[in-house]
């Protein structure tokens, strides 16, 4: 019997029991759908985590005072700051630490912004032109700080798109207009490209002004000895973090005259490492979810076997008739195997669609990028085929081993 005829027969047999076929298929649809949804959204979540950290810049280290996170509530008047502007200057000089490419100090404070159209409370950053380069962040409108303006004390500001929307109505307007920061008027010279969510929240909810301007207008105690912010350090290449951290630590300990027993009075964070830990945990969770989904697929497969076994018993007489008119055991085996194969593969295809819809919905709800890698689709197809053959084989063998005489006399 030709393979086409076999498939046509299988489709007809399945069509005759539409409700049962649909219910059995549902097991496969849900199973495959869950696997697809879990794998796809797992990858989406991982990608989201990755992007969040990439938005900080790659090959980046962050040097902060030991208790900068503890904040002003601990030591009074920011006595916790230990990194001096002198440290910053020496570290930024080429050659001090050979693996440091460039470094940008960043000071920040939350203040009120006021424009003609609205006002908005956000964090204002004071930094240099290098910061834009390290974070690989360009202007969508106007310009960012360059070496001249970044080193000056002019009252100019580069704003993120969230700010532009809040203060000027839409994400593209505001360049050339005035914004009051902490009561002082600043000219908006640029609007940054959209960056989306970062590890500390909305990347685009930020205003950048020149470091010197910040120090003069926003730093409470004027130009101080200590840097009450962070130093964003960009390294010269991949896999240099360990080396660079060791070098900086050694230098700072020497400059701060710390003896061997003393703890570091500064902190160096490696966002990449944090990102990796985050990604690892996301990956573990998505693997776990995919396993649970695989279990549901297994249950779906058992459903197929169950129905095929029932079908073999129900159709004992049909099997007898077919054998009577010349069907070989192999013909009967093929017929039932193809039926379960069609059941599973059609279920697999529908499950793929179902999984895709689930993944799409989830990516929508959680703000992930939609991931639908082709290899998952191919795997789903292969797996549903394997389920069909794997769980259909036993019923098919039972069908093929029926004795035609008994089968012909079988009363259902």
């Amino acid at each position, binding site marked *: *019997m*030709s393979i086409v*005829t076999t498939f046509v*027969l299988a489709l007809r047999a399945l069509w*005759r029991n539409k409700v049962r076929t649909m219910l059995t298929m549902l097991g496969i649809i849900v199973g495959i759908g869950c696997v697809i949804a879990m794998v796809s959204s797992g990858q989406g979540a991982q990608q989201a985590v990755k992007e969040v950290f990439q938005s900080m810049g790659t090959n980046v280290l962050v040097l902060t005072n030991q208790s900068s996170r503890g904040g002003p509530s601990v030591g009074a008047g920011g006595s916790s700051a230990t990194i001096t502007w002198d440290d910053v200057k020496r570290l930024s000089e080429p050659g001090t630490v050979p693996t440091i490419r460039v470094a940008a100090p960043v000071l920040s404070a939350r203040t009120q912004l006021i424009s003609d159209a609205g006002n908005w409370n956000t964090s204002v950053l004071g930094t240099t032109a290098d910061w834009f380069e390290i974070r690989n962040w360009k202007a969508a409108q106007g310009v960012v700080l360059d070496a001249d303006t970044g080193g000056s004390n002019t009252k100019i500001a580069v704003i993120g798109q969230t700010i532009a929307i809040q203060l000027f109505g839409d994400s593209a307007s505001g360049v050339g207009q005035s914004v009051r920061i902490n009561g002082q008027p600043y000219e908006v010279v640029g609007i940054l490209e959209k960056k989306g969510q970062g590890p500390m929240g909305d990347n685009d909810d930020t205003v950048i002004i020149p470091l010197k301007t910040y120090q003069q207008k926003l730093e409470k105690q004027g130009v101080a000895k200590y840097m009450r912010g962070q130093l964003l350090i960009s390294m010269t290449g991949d896999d240099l973090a360990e080396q660079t951290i060791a070098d900086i630590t050694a230098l700072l300990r020497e400059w701060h005259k710390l003896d061997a027993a003393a703890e570091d009075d500064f902190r160096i964070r490696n966002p990449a490492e944090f990102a990796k830990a985050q990604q690892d945990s996301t990956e573990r969770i998505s693997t776990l979810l995919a396993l649970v989904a695989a279990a549901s697929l297994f249950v779906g497969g058992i459903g197929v076997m169950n129905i095929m076994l029932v079908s073999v018993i129900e159709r004992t*007489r*049909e099997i*007898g*008739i*077919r*054998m*009577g*008119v*010349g*069907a*070989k*055991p*192999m*013909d009967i085996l093929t017929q039932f195997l193809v039926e379960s194969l069609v059941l599973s593969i059609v279920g697999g295809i529908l499950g793929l669609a179902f999984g895709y819809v689930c993944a799409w919905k989830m990516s929508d709800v959680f703000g992930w990028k939609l991931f639908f890698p082709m290899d998952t689709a191919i795997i789903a197809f292969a797996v549903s085929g394997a389920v069909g053959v794997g769980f259909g084989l036993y019923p098919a063998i039972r069908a093929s081993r029926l004795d*035609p*005489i008994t089968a*012909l006399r079988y009363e259902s």
Partner: protein
Amino acid sequence: MSADDEKRPLIEMKGIHRVYQMGDNVVRALRGVDLTVRHGESIAIMGTSGSGKSTLMNIMGCLDQPSMGSYHLNGRDVSRLSRSQLAEVRGRMIGFVFQSFNLLSRTSALENVEMPLLYQGVGSSERHKRAMAALDKVGLADRHDHHPNQLSGGQQQRVAIARALVGDAPVIMADEPTGNLDTRTSYEVMSILQGFVAAGKTIILVTHEADIAAYASRVVTLRDGLIIKDVQQTPHSAAEQLAALPPPVDDVPAAEVA
């Protein structure tokens, strides 16, 4: 049909035994049966239940194999074949007609008739053509798209006969073919079968009714697994009996029944 075919036996059974193991009991269903059937014969196998006639039919129809003895079908030894080889012999050599019709439900008459060809690897258009021709021979070409539940018992049995014919098998085995039919349709079915004998087919009727056996040219009687009688006779003509019946009364309209 050539003269050689006429002479050569179609079925040649020698010393056939069939022993079943039923729990602790050994059942000797056949205890040394010798039987030769020639091309074009119509033979009735009679016997009470337990006489071994069903077992003999199963072995003749290649559904079962003898425990002992030899069986040549059309010159080929078929007593020691695999299940798969037996299926092939059935497909090519034997058409079955059963008491309970054994048609696939929810499947059109045409598809039922096509089924044997499916397993002989006949292509779809050829299958269709030959199945239509077979249905035409039993007078049901116009009902080819009806499902069994839309056909009367007699019509269902005619579909089954068409299915037995479609593969051009030389032997038709009919197991109580009229057991579920009324007198008129029994005559119809038997006259169709007799028509095929006239056309050269060999028909083996398995029955316990003497009326049905009367249509055969030879009656073989079994008892306790042995042939006790084997007689030639002049068969009754089912067509003549059918003609002698009073014309059929029209069915009472459904409304009057209600």
